[in-house]
């Protein structure tokens, strides 16, 4: 014990055409739910496949559960559950046959637990996989990752293709397993989802780790967009100098701005007028990153940006 669940030092992978990852130093502690956040193509899948020894680093090292991924891959994989990002299953099997096969390759799994997992995710095991929808395949992928009660779950975009109710059940599952001490390394390109599930977040951008932060402080710093609709035109001066507010525009009866941190001062300023509606359009990850680099000089923005 004691050692980190995941530890990489200078982990680098170059590909022919795509960049992969570069000098990644990452520490995931045991028992935490770590969100690996980044846009598509940032290097999330590359990192994950390096950790599973599916691809080999150009340089640098990675340890999982205290063991070197190159030398002790088999021992690592015995204790790790993995959900691939580009999930491909054996089309000619049924869900149950697939799970039996994978369980056999692991030397068995608790079948009652596996069935209860499948039941919770509403996953039909009797259907041939070739007839399943994308969401139902994803459920099978999740079940197989959990079924042997691994110490560490490495999941690449786990909620991809899941309908919202199943996503919630998945979040519940993650919380439960976390209570039992399971560590999670979950990649995502969806900030709200990471905020809901994770304790800490690593933000990866263009192959490098741009920032690592507690979810709570990320929420405080994260950039939101806000639109306030008033009953009457409002004077722009009434909103000048509010902390955290930027890109403020007041046009007639509509105010738009970006906001980092507390919304309190802005709401209080707005409350002096009659407010019809407040909306918050989703901010793209890219905007959040740009914000991050402006806020934190030296936060890892050097390199390809």
């Amino acid at each position: 014990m004691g050692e980190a669940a995941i530890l990489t030092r200078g982990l680098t992978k170059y590909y022919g055409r795509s960049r992969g990852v570069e000098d990644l130093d990452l520490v995931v502690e045991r028992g935490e739910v770590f969100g690996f956040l980044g846009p598509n193509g940032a290097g999330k899948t590359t990192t994950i496949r390096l950790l599973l020894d599916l691809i080999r680093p150009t340089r640098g090292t990675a340890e999982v559960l205290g063991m070197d991924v190159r030398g002790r891959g088999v021992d690592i994989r015995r204790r790790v559950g993995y959900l691939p990002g580009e999930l491909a299953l054996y089309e000619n099997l049924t869900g149950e046959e697939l799970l039996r096969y994978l369980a056999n390759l692991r030397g068995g799994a608790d079948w009652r637990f596996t069935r209860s997992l499948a039941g919770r995710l509403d996953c039909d095991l009797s259907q041939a996989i070739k007839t399943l929808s994308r969401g139902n395949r994803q459920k099978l992928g999740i079940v197989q990752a959990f079924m042997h009660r691994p110490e560490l779950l490495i999941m690449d975009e786990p909620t991809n293709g899941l309908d919202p109710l199943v996503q919630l059940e998945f979040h519940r599952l993650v919380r439960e397993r976390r209570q039992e001490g399971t560590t999670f390394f979950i990649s995502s390109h969806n900030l709200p989802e990471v905020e809901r599930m994770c304790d800490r977040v690593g933000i990866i951008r263009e192959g490098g780790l741009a920032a690592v932060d507690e979810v709570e402080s990320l929420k405080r710093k994260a950039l939101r967009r806000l639109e306030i609709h008033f009953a009457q035109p409002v004077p722009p001066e009434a909103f000048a100098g509010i902390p955290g507010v930027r890109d403020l525009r007041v046009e007639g009866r509509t105010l738009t701005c970006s906001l980092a941190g507390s919304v309190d001062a802005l709401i209080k300023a707005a409350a002096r007028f009659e407010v019809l509606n407040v909306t918050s359009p989703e901010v793209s990850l890219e905007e959040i990153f740009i914000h991050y680099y402006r806020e934190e000089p030296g936060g890892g923005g050097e390199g390809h940006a």
Partner: protein
Amino acid sequence: MLKNVFLKTLRDQRVSLAWWAVGIAALCLFLVAYYPTVSRTPSLIEFMEEAPDWVKAFIGESAEDYTSPSGFLHGELFFVMAPMLFIIFAVSRGSAAIAGEEGKGTLDLLLANPIPRRRVVLEKAASMAAATLGLGLVLWASLSVGAALFDMDISPANLAAASLSCVLLGLVFGNLALAVGCLTGKRGRSVGIAAASAVTTFFVYSLSGMVKALKPWSRISPFYYYIASEPLKRGLNAAHALVLLAASLALGALSVFLFERRDILV
């Protein structure tokens, strides 16, 4: 059948394997049933006697006694047809083993299990060998049964020798396909290179009978070790069989070596 990689791989091909077995059995029985007609056709004997040397060279050394049981089976089945079928079958298995699964994207899921890569390769290679050997048994059994039914005078032991040689030849190219798949992860390339090697080495061997320049090269051809010792007439040549077996094992070992060292394609 889902206990391990070996059994799962056999299970995946059970339907196609059954059709291959039916096809080979039907082909053998049809050929043997046709033999009494051939052996009693004098004009055919004359034709073969008068055939130019290059025809004889191409059909093989036994062309002179085309109407004898072993000559007939050699010319009609074991010179081109049977090796072609066994090579096609083994190459399709060998290329599906790693490159096929990699192309479908299921290799990530498979290799995320606590089994070493070399075991995946070896179990898949063993499954290819077992299936090919099974087809070899079908070949031998249907020829033996056919020979008994239609009074063809040939010993089951020699039929077994020829069938086994055919299996060993097929596996050489099957393992070559496996090795190329392990190196590149591309199924098309694996099939292409194995098929091209089979065609090339076939012609190197079959033409070496009349093209003097090719003579020294005939021994690098797996076909030489497959048929030059005339297993239909003389039984199994252990040394030649061992050469084929050794080539398969070497290519299998090379496959493991190559696959251990590379990135799995997405």
